Each structure stands twice: as C-alpha cells, then as structure tokens.
C-alpha cells in the first residue's frame, strides 16, 4: 500500500475529538475517542472489501484534511438565500452550515406540546445523557459511522412524544459553503408510540466546493409510530457524500424513507432498517439521477427479526454520461420472522453507452412461511414509446424528457408530502432538455 493512499494516517487527527462539541462531557469524549480508535484501526474500506467492491473511496483518504471546521462558518449569501427559499411554508426549519447549527438562519416555529427539535451540539455541550446510547458501537454500520461518531459536529435531535402528530414537516437543511472541507452532520430522530412526523434532510452545496460530507441519521420508531423521512442529495458536482440512515422499528410502526440523489461526484448511502416488532411496515424508495462521471451507491439492508412485517423497496436510476450507479439490496429474514412479506425492485434507465449500473439483490432467508420477491432491470428508452409520443406532435427531445420523467415519477409520486414532491419533480426537470416546458404542463 502506498504512503499516499494512507496519507490520512499522517494527519494529526487524534486531537480532533477534544476540539468538538461535548469535549468536556465525559461520555461524549469517551465515545468519540473510542470511535476514532475503531476508525483508525480499520481505515477506509478498500475495493477488495465485498461491500465496497464497486465504490472506490480512496480519494477520501487523500484529502488535505478530514478534520471538521471547529468554528461555525459565516454563511455565504448563497447559503442564506437557500435557507430563505427552500423550506415550505410552515415547516420547522433547522439550517446547518458546514455541519454547524445556524440559529439565525433557522425557523423552528411553534411546536406541539412536548415536541423537541434541538441542536445536537448543544445537547452534547450541556452534558445531556440522552443521546448517549446512539453513539454506541452497536449502531456503527460502516467505518464511516465510526468516523461520524468521532467527528460529528452537530445536527438535529427530533423527539416526538407518544400520540403527538407533528403536522408540518421538519426540514433539515445542510449547506456546504465556503471552505468547508470535511462535514459531519448527525441527526437523531425519535418517534414515540403512535406519533407521526415527516422529516426532510436536504443536502445542498455550491458549484465549486469539494466538500466531503459524512452524514448519519438514526431513526427510532416506537410502537405504532409513523414516520416519512426523505433525504435529498443535491450537493455540488465536486462533492463527496457518504451517508448512513439507520432505523429501528418497534411493533406496528410504519417507516417510509426516500433517498433522492442528484448531486455529488461520489456518493454512497447505507440504509439499514431493523424490524424488531411484529407487523411493521417499512418502505425504502430511491431515485438516483446521474450524469458525467458521477458515482452513486445505495446499499440497503432490511433485517426482518419479527413476524408479519412488510418491507418494500423501490429504487430507480437514470444514468447519463459516464456515470455509475450501484444498488445493493440485502434482505435478511431471521429465524422466527414468519409471515414476512418482502419485495424489492430496482429499475435502471441508461441514457448513454458509457453509463453503467451494478445491481444486486441479496436475500437471506432463515424462516418459513415467508414471501420474498425481487426484480431488477437495466434498459434504455423504448423506441415504441418514443415514436408514439412523436406521432402526437411531441418533438423527440421533449418526448425523451417526458419518458424519463415518467420513469422517475414512479418513485417521486411515492412521496407523501405534496410540496416536497413538487420540489423533487422540479429538481429532476431542471436537468432534462425542455424540462421547463414539462414543468409548465404538470
């Protein structure tokens, strides 16, 4: 192994936990130091590691620094503009600039009684023990989770108590701005029994910024809780984003988590769901729309531990240029999880001969009386469809955009929150020829 690849080992990173939120809270510092040790021991994954076979992350280890900004950055005028324009009317908005909470740009608004929407950094600084268990090694899914445990600068803690319905969505906006090099957001979302909430995480970056974002979100759903969660990745074309979404569900809870990946040069989301109580519903939706040399990898893992749970995965990709998409969908039906009903589908549309997709379903079944199905396709725009549209006066470029829109719409239409759905439609159409025209017709 060359010295260059391992250059991050020569950075003085051991001191970083002492500089971050909660440094004088003993459990925080301990958790960070031990997490850093685990990261340092393991190092970044290599492609010989089966889980990282298609995604080369060695460029991260060659960065100038992996240490996050210690002092919150002054938001640029671009960042301010985004904060003022993106969130929908009445949403509970928290803005983070380079991983640090910016209270001035945020509009938390009125929350129902008992609902907490707080800055993680503040809780860590205050010595609050409440987030402690979420920093446990047991929650670390990849080495990037260890790195996030060690270096998380901030994020949102959302707590919705039992039986409370949070009507307006929580909108968490993460802006990569200015000189933000390494950004470590961390969100913890806790939905009490029979509560309901919608959580949006939106990652934005400016055109020129070469940020590395390592974002982890943990979701904990109590019995009967219903959560819709949506992650939008719209960072700049030079950005790297390695994310994790890790959910645990108690009985009869319902989680829908969407992943929309449009930005980034190199992106990866590890999404894991543990179905621990009976009769849970879990739906994982995703759409990656890539161009040029973009690389986006979704690794999902659903663990059916309890009986009679239903899981659904709908992932689609639209790939142009020399982009590369990866989908790996693992479903494990553990012993005793009888009555499991799991379905997974990954469909890909290749718009260019240089674009590439690797898709792999992985079903591991250790229980009887289960229903598990999966399907994956890789195809091109249909000539018959194109001709049909053209024969109705629609020119070829517009017809192609309409077909791509239709293909992607299968995923977008699954978003429950209407304003968000429209926003995503527009994100998509902004990238298509004559997209403006399509927008006008919707």
């Amino acid at each position: 192994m060359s010295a260059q690849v391992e250059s991050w080992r020569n950075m003085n990173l051991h001191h970083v936990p002492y500089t971050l939120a909660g440094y004088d809270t003993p459990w925080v510092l301990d958790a960070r130091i031990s997490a850093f040790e685990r990261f340092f021991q393991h190092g970044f994954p290599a492609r010989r590691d089966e889980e990282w076979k298609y995604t080369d992350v060695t460029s991260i280890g060659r960065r100038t620094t992996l240490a996050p900004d210690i002092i919150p950055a002054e938001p640029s005028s671009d960042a301010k503009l985004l904060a003022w324009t993106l969130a929908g009317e009445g949403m509970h908005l928290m803005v983070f600039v380079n991983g640090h909470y910016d209270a001035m740009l945020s509009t938390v608004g009125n929350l129902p009684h008992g609902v907490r929407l707080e800055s993680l950094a503040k809780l860590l600084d205050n010595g609050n023990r409440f987030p402690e268990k979420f920093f446990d090694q047991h929650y670390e899914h990849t080495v990037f989770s260890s790195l996030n445990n060690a270096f998380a600068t901030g994020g949102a803690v959302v707590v919705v108590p039992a039986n409370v319905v949070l009507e307006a969505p929580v909108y968490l906006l993460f802006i990569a701005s200015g000189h933000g090099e390494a950004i470590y957001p961390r969100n913890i979302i806790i939905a009490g029994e029979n509560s309901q909430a919608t959580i949006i995480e939106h990652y934005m970056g400016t055109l020129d910024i070469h940020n590395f974002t390592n974002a982890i979100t943990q979701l904990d759903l109590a019995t009967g809780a219903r959560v819709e969660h949506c992650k939008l990745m719209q960072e700049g074309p030079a950005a790297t984003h390695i994310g994790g979404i890790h959910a645990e569900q108690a009985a009869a809870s319902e989680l829908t988590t969407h992943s929309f990946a449009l930005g980034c040069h190199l992106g990866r989301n590890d999404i894991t769901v543990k179905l621990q109580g009976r009769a849970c519903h879990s739906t994982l939706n995703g759409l990656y729309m890539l161009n040029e040399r973009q690389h986006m990898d979704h690794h999902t893992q659903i663990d059916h531990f309890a009986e009679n749970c239903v899981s659904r995965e709908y992932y689609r990709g639209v790939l142009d240029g020399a982009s590369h998409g990866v989908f790996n969908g693992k479903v494990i039906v553990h012993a005793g999880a009888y009555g499991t009903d799991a379905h997974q589908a990954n469909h890909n549309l290749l718009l260019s001969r240089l674009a590439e997709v690797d898709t792999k379903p992985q079903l591991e079944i250790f229980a009887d009386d289960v229903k598990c199905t999966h399907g994956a396709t890789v195809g091109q725009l249909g000539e018959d469809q194109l001709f049909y549209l053209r024969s109705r006066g629609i020119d070829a470029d517009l017809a192609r955009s309409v077909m791509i829109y239709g293909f992607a719409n299968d995923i977008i239409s699954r978003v429950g929150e209407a304003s968000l759905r429209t926003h995503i439609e527009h994100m998509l159409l902004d990238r298509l020829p004559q997209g403006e025209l399509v927008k006008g017709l919707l």
Partner: protein
Amino acid sequence: MLSVKNLHVTIDGKEILSGLDFDIKAGQVHAIMGPNGSGKSTLVQALAGREGYVVTDGSVRYLKHDLLKMTPEQRSREGLFLAFQYPVEIPGVSIAFFLRTALNAIRKQQGLPELDAIDFLGLVRARMRQLDMDESFLSRAVNEGFSGGEKKRNEILQMLILEPKLIILDEPDSGLDIDALRFVADSINKMRNPQRAIVLVTHYQRLLDYVVPDVVHVLSQGRIVKSGDAELARQLEKNGYGWIEAEVAARQVA
C-alpha cells in the same frame, strides 16, 4: 389531400411495399384491406414516419407538403393522426399531461396560444362526456394496464381532441367485441366531414358495416391491386382474398 405515388418501402433490406399508388381527397373515407403480410401496417408506419421503414422510391404528397421529408412530429402537427393498432404504454405519464402536451404542440404549430390547465380541462371534459368516459381516466398513466377496449377509446379521445385533418386508423376493430366495435365506428362516423379524410386499414369487413367507405382498396404483395366501392368489401368478406390474388397472378401472366 394525400397522394401516394409508386411507393417502395423496405424493412431491414427487404422490400415490403413495391410501387403503391393511392389518392384520397378531403371528405372521403377509404378502406385499405388486405390479407396478413400484404403490407398494410408497413404503409401505415411509413406514412407516420416510423424509423426503420426506408422509402427507396416514390413520393407522398400531403396537402402542400412532401410528407417523406417530415419528422413524425411535424406530420402530426400538420394534422396527420395515426390511431395505433397497439397503443403503447407510457408509464408514469398521465393521460391529462400527455394530451395537453400533444395538443399544445399542435396549437403552437397552428399559431394558436397554448391552452392553460383550466381551458384544457374544460375541453377534455367535454370530449370525454361525448365518449361517455369517466374523468378518473385522466389521471391514469397512458395505456398502462388498459384493456384492449380502453386503449382504443384512448386513441379515439386523442383523435377528438387533436382534430386532425387526415386520420389513419390501423386495424381499429382488432380485438373488440361488438359493442366496442360499434362505439369505435360511431366515433369515426362523427369525425367524417368535408374537410377531413379518413383511411381505415383493416383485415376484416365487419367494421365497414358501420363505417361505409367511399372507396375500398385491396392491398396485395405491397401494391394496391384492386379498388372499388363498398361492394368490393362485401365480396371480400364472402369470397376471401384468394380470388383477387388469382386475378393478379392471371394479369401478371398475361
């Protein structure tokens, strides 16, 4: 309105149409009949401008245009409408969106302002009432999961909304029960007017009991071999295509 002269079309290097001549004037309804493999669908696809249908000789005038120089979308915008035998599914695209996009493309060509959502909906609703169609149809994806009858209905709805000058219907009666057939026939009859030409391409005569054509052409081996009035269709129904092919063969020998 449409004048086809000595049309030769090949697919993958194989000649399917070999010198086809055919003329239709505004106000007329023509039926083009022929056995399987005679070149009926090739004619239809070539007139609509489908890729892969290579015209090696001949000409097609449509109104004032050289039809063969036009893209499929230009043909449509100039008023040519093909009702597909097998309408294609477009997943994720609603009928409402599809119709509005198509209509505005055509209106733009005609120098008319685009219809906004409200005016468009007003127009579509009126047309759907005419066809006794449920409004929920509008939010369904184009042809996705449609029954054969629903697909044909959708073609008819488009025809009514786009108000074409030249309508070509490719086997509009295929796969329909008698009620659906009558519905399609009624809709075609309502479209008949002195400014419009209609071409029915069909294997069977049964549709022609309801839509009586001015001229019937018989297509065989890539050529129109016989033309006549509606009586010709009835003869074909009774005697099949064999006698015509025999007649053609006899002529070739002579």
